[in-house]
């Protein structure tokens, strides 16, 4: 029996794309929306901030070209200079403390979990759970916990006989910033832990066995096998922590306030920028010029340091391995 001829294609004019064109269209469909989003919400605001920073503002009106005057004021004129330096150092403290407390602990936990002790999955979930909560929510909740009158922290200290340690945690210059950093670490600990753990798990088991056969103890294994081989993960975490620390806004805003109380001890550059550009309803006026200058300086600082540091760390990764 002769094969019946294929049914004729329906007589509709379908546009047939070459595979190459189809692929291009597919890629464009994927790339255009995020590119437009990025342009509208990232690039254009950045450019307008750069333009605004060169103008003098009267209230909310732009009144004249100012050259570098806004930059000069935030960097060299008191009291703005003092506030800029103070906020900058607070950012540095945030970064260093998070590196040691949050990321150090995360590395330690990842190494422990890397040995697959009993309940590894359970601990993974427990450590990662706070990461899924919104910063604003966590900040608000912890602000209540740390409230000296109705807060859980002081009440629990009292309940276990440590009432003498009860403090107005967020109200003292000595404890406010570190309390907020602690909350940040509590919320974010799971993320570096998971990243480190994934890196550790990607190391072939043979390396550990070989090292142990050669008589290396756990410290030596961690120092000479694990550490060099997870260096790329460390680079990512260091850079992310750096960028996060210098863009730190939501937690101090929710937990302390826009003016970085008490005594500017929780003031960081992003708060200071926001307060300057958009005003502080309870006392300050908005100044787009100085605010934009701060935003531009902050952006340049983070960009230059992040790029330089990434290069250095990448080179070091090669040296370690």
């Amino acid at each position, binding site marked *: 029996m002769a094969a019946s001829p294929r049914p004729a294609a329906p007589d509709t004019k379908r546009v047939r794309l070459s595979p190459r064109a189809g692929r291009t269209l597919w890629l464009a469909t994927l790339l255009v929306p995020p590119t437009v989003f990025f342009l509208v919400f990232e690039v254009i605001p950045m450019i307008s901030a750069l333009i605004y920073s060169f103008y003098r503002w009267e209230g909310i009106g732009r009144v004249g070209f100012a050259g570098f005057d806004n930059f000069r004021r935030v960097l060299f004129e008191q009291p703005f200079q003092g506030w800029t330096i103070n906020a900058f150092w607070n950012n540095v403290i945030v970064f260093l403390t998070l590196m040691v407390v949050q990321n150090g602990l995360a590395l330690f936990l990842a190494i422990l979990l890397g040995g697959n002790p009993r309940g590894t999955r359970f601990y993974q979930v427990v450590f990662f759970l706070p990461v899924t909560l919104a910063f604003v929510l966590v900040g608000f909740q912890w602000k209540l916990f740390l409230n000296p009158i109705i807060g859980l922290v002081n009440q629990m200290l009292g309940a276990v006989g440590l009432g003498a340690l009860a403090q107005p945690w967020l*109200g003292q210059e000595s404890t406010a910033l570190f309390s907020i950093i602690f909350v940040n670490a509590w919320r974010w600990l799971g993320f570096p832990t998971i990243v480190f753990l994934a890196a550790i798990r990607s190391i072939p088991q043979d390396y550990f066995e070989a090292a142990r056969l050669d008589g290396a103890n756990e410290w030596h294994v961690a120092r000479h096998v694990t550490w060099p081989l997870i260096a790329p993960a460390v680079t990512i975490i260091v850079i992310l922590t750096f960028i996060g620390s210098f863009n730190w806004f939501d937690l101090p805003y929710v937990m302390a306030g826009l003016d970085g109380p008490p005594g500017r001890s929780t003031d960081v550059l992003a708060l200071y920028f926001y307060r300057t550009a*958009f005003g502080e309803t309870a006392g300050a*006026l908005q100044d787009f010029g100085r605010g934009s200058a701060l935003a531009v300086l902050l952006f340049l600082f983070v960009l230059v340091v992040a790029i330089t540091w990434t290069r250095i760390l990448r080179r070091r990764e090669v040296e370690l391995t």
Partner: protein
Amino acid sequence: MRKRFGVFGLVLACALLMGFAVAQVTLNFWSWRTEDVAAYRELIDQFEAENPDIKVEFQAFEFATYATVQMTALLAGEGPDIVHVRAYGAFEAIAAPGFLMALDDKVPALADFPPLALDGNRLRRDGLVYAVPFASQTLVIYYNVDIFEELGLALPETWDEFLDTAEQIKAAGYVPIANGTATSSMNEVLKGVFAPSFYGPDFFDDIMTGEATFEDPRYVGALEKLLELAPYLAPQHQGVDYPTSQNLFVNELAAMFVSGSWDIANLRLQNPDLNFGVMAPPVPEAGQTPLVSWFLDGGFAVNADTKHLEEAVTFVNYLASREFGQLFTDLLANISPIPGVVSTDPLLAKVAELNQNSTPYIMLVGFRYQEPSGSVLVQERLASMLAGTITPAQVAKEVTEGIATYFEPFQNR
């Protein structure tokens, strides 16, 4: 006949359409008073009943973001027809670049307003008024009548009596003054209540003319008095914020609460059974008259770019009328600056009585026009002073130096 009906129908349709078109004039009215939406609806209903051609859409935004929302909209040319504006520096930030319309010749009733109220919405550059003042605020001490009666306490008149009263309240297990110092702006309020009776009625003018700076002994002395209050504030006051302070007072754990007249409605709302009164700030010596801090809260302005000028002017004229002021005061327990408005509310009546001897709330009225504003400088330092880490003299010095960066009368000294 049929033709005549046709013409009649056409005329009727046109009339209806025109009527429809007229009824379509909608004014947008933006405010930060999210708590007062229902009351404003009632106030607007009264206006709409008298002006059926004009519809007013009231929209309230969160206080903390209002300035930003307002600014962004005005810059983009999308602002509302009627703008609820703050007073003094925050007002100038919008009025100076030309976003608002001068109202002196459009709202005749303004001529009868008290000059001090108008000054809050007057552009210093041209001396014109750009908003109808809507409410004034006075800084006061609230006290819990029941706790005072329970402890057999009389209202203190002098500073020494006040400290003695606070001591007795503390001994009885209550918090004497609910305030904490974690919310910076409330520290300025604390100063605004107690300091004027010590630095006196002439100090504001002396400062504005450069006769004195904030390092004047009158001011430093007043700050030193504030320090004496520290033991009577909320326990661990450094960590107690404004909402917690309100809670302490509302839940009758504290006997006194230092705040502004804006809190009356809020305190009643939070605890309708709370039996509280308004007390005058203590004076240095018996027989002296207490001096309270007073300021204009803001006003109602017309967007310079409104497409409905005539209707917007009609509406702000209503907002300046006694009819509006009376209903406003009755509904919102706020002091209206509109002449002839009287309040039957006993607390408001007490506030009005205290207003007879008032002085401008110094940093807001005098030094919120440029940065660093007086408020920013003093709020930040007062918490540290009350925590004992810096002295009143240091606060005074830093505030003076900060303001001297732009305030000429301080520079030549």
